[in-house]
């Protein structure tokens, strides 16, 4: 892909994909945090 070996392709594109999925998972799992509300 793009003239890169598979391992390099995964390094360049796989890690960003992982962090996108991590962020989506974080947003979904932390929905209850909004209950913290204004504290001041």
């Amino acid at each position, binding site marked *: 892909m793009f003239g890169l070996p598979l391992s390099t392709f995964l390094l360049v594109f796989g890690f960003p994909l992982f962090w996108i999925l991590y962020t989506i998972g974080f947003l979904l799992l932390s929905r209850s*945090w909004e209950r913290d509300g204004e*504290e001041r």
Partner: protein
Amino acid sequence: MNATVIAFLVLYYVVVLGIGFWAMRQGASEDLEGFLLGGRDVGPLVTALTLQSTSMSGYMFLGAGSLAYTTGYWSLWFAAGDIGGGVLNLSVIGRRMRKLSQVMGSLTAIEYLEGRYPSSATRLIAASLSVFLLAFYVLAQFIAGGKGMALVTGLDYSWALLIALSIIIIYTFLGGYLAVAYTDFFQSLVMIVGVVWILAAALAHVGGFTAANHALAAIDPTILSIWGRGLGFEGQWGVVAGAVLVFSAGYMGWPHVVTRHMAMRRPATARLAGAYATGWNLLFVSSPYLVGILAILILPSLDDPELALIEVARTLLPPAATGIVMAAIMAAIMSTADSLLLQTGSIASRDLYERFINPKASERQMVLVSRLLILAIGVIGYFVALVEPPAVAFVVIFATSVLGSAFAPAFVCAVWWKKANTPGAIASMVAGAVTSVAWELAGLATATTLAPVTAGLAASTLAIVVVSLATQNMSPVPKHILGAMEETARVGPIPEEMPAMFDFTLRPEAEEIESMIREGKK
């Protein structure tokens, strides 16, 4: 010297200083909480972008390009961890640290550590380590600023360094945290525009991404390898782990970065800030490395690889665009340097001066001490950067490796592990710092194929677990801290009576009364 480039740089400095003045007029530095944490009123977008632009320093434009130019695609291991550094930090400790710091009334990251791991030794060790390492780290920013400005403006390095350094110090003085956060926000946008512009120009010049990789393979196929040019890192998973960890997990131990959590408007601000951080990183983080790799094709015989990005910009872009790119480079440098300076000043005034030298210091005196130290670092930094400037990449990777090794387990366990106690945290900070420094100085990374940050993080994590468990009876975690941790874990507003339990101004008296009661019982 190109007039258009200079005009853009001047425009950039005017805008940055204007934002600094505006922040000052908002009353940011009227009291210490305002000066150090912007009154804990920073929203998710500004939190995310100040977090990211603070951590992306001059290293990204000088060090990253140099690393990529010399090692090829191997350098992308650093980007692999870095892309998720923001969201990892915010998701693991962001919400809890915001809440616990408010309960404890902590204004600096070090004060927070002392509140959670109560002992003056915690603060003394943490503050001393931080002041030294952050000052060392800021030195790299001065060098990067001087080098970049000298190349683009044609000024002598000593004058370029003096101008860059003066501007950084002036606007750090202006409004404290709020000035830093809002200028960081503006600078993060400039950084994105600058780096994407160079990458687009470089890709267009070499005929696209695939064509560039074919051309690189024709020069040396190992440039494309994940093991580095000449396969210099083949099978060295410990070094690879270090490259991934230093800007991801290690990032949770940088005091000037985790302070951003304490300044958030609400604990839940961490959610959206995490999403913004990932979005920004996806655009920004890999780009300098890719430009560094493409520079192998565009400028095959560079004398100083640290100038790869700047030289590519000068070669391919029109003067106006080079001016914007140069502003982006200065933005990366200055957005980190101001935060480092502010944090170092805060730690020196609040954690060393007030705590150990003048407990009755007024807020005005502490702001003065903070500003004097910033000035002193600037003067010392100027002469070190002038006489014997070390490589930017080396200084940044070394300083961040030691910071991450020393503090990441202590910050993570502070909110997640109730058994983490004072002896465990102190042992962890000392073990992490000593191991990572010794690893670097003794050259053990090559012999063991383990990066200093990998060894340092392993040592500090092991130390906090083993020592905390071994000293549970001798030094249990105080009940009011366990209560605060339970409150921190719970999602909901903080009860009004909770923060009073951690009143720092009453602590010496409370300790005295407690010891009198103990002695009375005997």
